[in-house]
């Protein structure tokens, strides 16, 4: 059973690959490993058993491998994404980045496959730690600070998850990852949901995403954008479909992300807020809970991974070549980086949901589910979010980076990006169109069968109208939408301020008191104690010893006096002898 597990679990090649990164020295061999590992995983996918059985460890029943259509879908897209991501990062020489990315993907796959909460938690934390290194390996000071915040936030989320798991185990004695019915959900379940929501970057637990992703390494951000949030989406899909609170929250989240994205200046930050927005669609779909909703969320996750990675790759290309990611510092790159423009635009239209792209066939499932469930408020929010998405990433982002005249007159230093970056972007772009053109390929993988036909006249015309008027709106409001180099305050202001206050209090106040307390024994106690010890020593020498020596000196003194008695005069001797004789006689007579 163990060998079967080791052979069939797709995380194993990734872990082995990470170990190989440590040992293998030649670059070419490392690159070969990087490409081979996701291919091996894809091969394993075709031979996955339904389950590899249950293990007992420390009295807990663990099921590390459990496959059904839901997890298979996510596994599929994760492995493809891993391949794209590794192709994108072939040119990076630091093996640490590769090792961290490999472990990160391994963690993600492990969560997707886990049948019990213990395995899930272990792989969850593996994901958190490995992804932190993807941020820390960027050698800037801001990356170091952002990585620390990222790690702390994820640790807190992991702790909430752990609390929920432990409470659930204590209440039910069951560790299996199964769906929870909204009516019977208790504190334990809500804690687990909170842990999942933090990884899914649901506001108010979302600020870490926009804080950390812009600071990561270029290739690291490509991985980061794909795995953490979508693994959390999978987890929510598995355990909490149908919770109404998720539907409302998801819709608000979609609009929230878009609002911030429109005003942001940093290109990767814009994309990070769009992650929040798109994940909002998924969370909304899960919350609606109907077959269409859940399938829509899954399909959207699939498509989103690929086109978001494509967007990050395009912007990452710009960052790699120019060293800049702020819109205010970029512009006019259409001459020097045309391919990056093409691919980013492909990603942009995918995320906006243009017909013939993957976004069109997947995002609309969620909105259709909302319409079907007669949630008009949610539908309105999602529509607004679509508008904002296209506005921000479909039009504004490419315009500002590639078309607009740069603010500085000096030309930007550019050179051609490595070929593997373009190859990776090409693969992703291909998938965007492929899924868009033949959606049945994706729909076959969906967990719940929902009859949905995206290419209807109404749908196409509605989409084109929406996008067209958004474009018109941008053209008219272009001046107002110009980027400004300002800092946007998000909800993380609250806990960052609180952390600063706490740190000041600890360093200045608590430490001072602690030092005084620690020194108390020396200032108060030790001084007096040593004084007592010294007084004891003095007493010993002055009194006791002097007494003893005094006796000896007295005896010696007596002897001296008696010696001096011998003065040679015989009459003194006779007189003394007589007195002694009388004394002795007197004593004898008396007694």
């Amino acid at each position, binding site marked *: 059973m163990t060998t079967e597990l080791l052979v069939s679990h797709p995380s194993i090649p990734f872990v082995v690959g990470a170990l190989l990164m440590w040992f293998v020295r030649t670059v070419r061999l490392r690159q070969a490993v990087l490409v081979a590992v996701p291919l091996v995983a894809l091969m394993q996918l075709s031979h996955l058993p339904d389950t590899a059985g249950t293990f007992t460890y420390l009295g807990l029943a663990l099921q590390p491998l459990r496959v059904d259509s839901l997890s298979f879908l996510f596994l599929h897209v994760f492995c493809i994404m891993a391949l794209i991501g590794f192709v994108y990062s072939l040119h990076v020489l630091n093996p640490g980045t590769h090792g961290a990315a490999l472990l990160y993907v391994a963690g993600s796959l492990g969560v997707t496959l886990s049948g019990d909460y213990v395995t899930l938690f272990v792989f969850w934390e593996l994901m958190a730690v490995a992804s932190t290194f993807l941020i820390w390996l960027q050698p800037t000071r801001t990356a170091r600070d952002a990585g620390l915040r990222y790690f702390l936030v994820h640790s807190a989320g992991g702790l909430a998850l752990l609390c929920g798991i432990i409470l659930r185990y204590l209440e039910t004695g069951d560790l299996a990852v199964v769906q929870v019915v909204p009516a019977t959900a208790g504190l334990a379940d809500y804690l687990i949901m909170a842990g999942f929501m933090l990884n899914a970057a649901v506001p108010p637990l979302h600020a870490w995403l926009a804080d950390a992703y812009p600071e990561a390494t270029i290739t690291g951000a490509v991985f980061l954008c794909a795995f953490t949030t979508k693994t959390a989406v999978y987890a929510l899909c598995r355990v909490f479909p149908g919770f109404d609170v998720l539907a409302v929250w998801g819709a608000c989240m979609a609009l929230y992300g878009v609002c911030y994205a429109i005003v942001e200046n940093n290109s990767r930050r814009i994309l990070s807020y769009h992650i929040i927005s798109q994940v909002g669609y998924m969370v909304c779909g899960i919350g609606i809970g109907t077959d269409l909703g859940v399938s829509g969320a899954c399909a959207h996750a699939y498509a989103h991974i690929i086109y978001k990675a494509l967007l990050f790759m395009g912007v990452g290309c710009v960052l790699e070549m120019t060293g800049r990611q702020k819109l205010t510092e970029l512009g006019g790159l259409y001459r020097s980086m045309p391919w990056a423009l093409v691919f980013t635009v492909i990603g942009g239209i995918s995320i906006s949901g243009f017909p013939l792209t993957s976004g069109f066939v997947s995002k609309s499932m969620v909105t259709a589910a909302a319409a079907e469930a007669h949630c008009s408020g949610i539908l309105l929010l999602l529509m607004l979010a679509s508008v904002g998405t296209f506005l921000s990433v479909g039009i504004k982002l490419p315009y500002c980076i590639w078309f607009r005249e740069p603010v500085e007159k000096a030309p930007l230093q550019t050179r051609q990006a490595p070929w593997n970056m373009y190859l990776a972007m090409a693969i992703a772009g291909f998938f965007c169109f492929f899924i868009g053109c033949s959606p049945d390929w994706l729909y076959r993988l969906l967990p719940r069968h929902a009859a949905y036909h995206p290419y209807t006249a109404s749908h196409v015309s509605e989409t084109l109208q929406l996008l067209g008027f958004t474009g018109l709106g941008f053209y008219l409001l272009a001046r107002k939408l110009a980027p400004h180099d300002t800092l946007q305050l998000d909800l993380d202001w609250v806990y960052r301020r609180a952390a600063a206050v706490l740190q000041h209090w600890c360093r200045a106040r608590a430490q001072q008191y602690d030092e005084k307390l620690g020194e108390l024994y020396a200032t108060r106690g030790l001084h007096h104690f*040593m004084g*007592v*010890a010294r007084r*004891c*020593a003095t007493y*010993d020498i002055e009194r006791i010893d002097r007494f*003893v*020596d005094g006796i*000896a000196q007295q005896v010696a003194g007596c002897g001296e006096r008696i010696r001096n008695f011998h003065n040679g005069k015989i009459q003194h001797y006779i007189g003394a002898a007589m007195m002694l004789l009388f004394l002795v006689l007197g004593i004898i007579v008396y007694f």
Partner: protein
Amino acid sequence: MTPSLLLQGIGYPVLSVLVCLPLAGAGLALFVRSAPAVRWLAVAVTLLTLGASLPLYSSFDRTLPGFQFVEHRAWLPAAQFDYIVGVDGISVVLVLLTTLLMPLCVLCSWREVQERVQEFVVVLLLLEAALIGVFVSLNIVLFYLFWEGMLIPLYLLIALWGGPARNYASVKFFLYTFAGSIFLLFALLMLYVAAGSCSMPELLQQPLSYELQMLVFICCTVAFAVKTPLYPLHTWLPAAHVEAPTAGSVILAGILLKMGGYGFLRFCLGFAPAATREAAPVMMVCALAAILIGGLLALGQQDLKRLVAYSSVAHMGFVVLGIFLLSSRGMQASVLQMINHGISTGALFICIGMLYERTHSRLLADNSALGALMPRFVTLLTLCAFSSFGFPGTNGFIGEFLIIVAAFEKKWILGAGAVPGVLIAAAYMLRALQKIIWADRSPHHHPRETPPRMFSDIGLREVGILLVLVFFIILIGLQPSVVLDLTRASVESLANRVAGAGR
């Protein structure tokens, strides 16, 4: 009593051999003039004695409470003095301690004693014979003979090879201890007159009247309290220790002080059990005072040897406390503590001797910041110091812990009074260690302007000496039954004897 020899299958009178071998060696050393040869002779004789004493450990019957390896020979039939030697559980461990420490004393004086080496060896071997004789003799006159016989060699040891104030210290030691022994002689004479016999086995079987017991107890207590030493009769010890050479300090601390404890067990508890029961509270209070005040005295010291001397006062306070708890556990623990103290304080004095050979000063101020220069030495010194204050894992912990447990069992306030003593011990030991290994940062320290020093770390001979002691420190610390097994039966019978004695 009929003369007899209970050889217990060894085949030779082991105890007489143990007493006579060093005597023979001393006699032989009178003819060897060259210094290196006589040193090697000393090593050979002491090692031979050690080897001859090993059968005591292996053939000792741990189940019998009485005396073993008894040799009974006629000596002065007219005065009913017989030559009786034997060991029981209490004395066998002390004999083994003596034979263990003597070769180490010879080895540690290899370079230290350069003048009159022949006389030094003779004195040392005579001392060994007397020390072993004290522990094995079962005739009270023989006991007194060896008791006093050990004073002269030790006096010579301090007076001839000691420090600057050696005259004062040696005379003080001699007169003080001798004055105490006068009381012992008085008690022994009273015992002989009252019981009509000199042999300890016979005396132990005869019950004595309460008044006689009290008199014997008081006189013996004075003698042994001076020897132990018990506060406030302790002031000879710092002077003697400071001025003695290393071998003298080791013998003084390692073996001589144990004679006081042994005397308490054998005479006060053995011959005067009812009086002991009456007087035990007073003795325990004195012991507690010794523990606490001895520790406080050690804390304020700047001279290393004085510090260890006062720590000996504190440790022997633990021993006396354990004895006068009058429980089997307390007495066993005190015998163990005697052995532990012998080993660890002997080791500490040897370490201080090594320091003195290099820095020619015993002051803490002159011996500071040595950690970088002498790492091996400092490691072994730390181990010995840890054993001295009873760090768990070392032998000192077992002894002190068992005594404190026995004290708590008797009365909780006794245990509560003894525990600060352990804390103070840790304080002064660690303070000394800190100043030796690292620089002295106290406000009282004004470092002298001396050029940077280079000392050689300890060599093979010195490491060997310390490793032997460290081995026993760790062995007894982790497996105290090697000592406790030997003492159990005798101590239990003694405790029963004290508990069952009528008023």
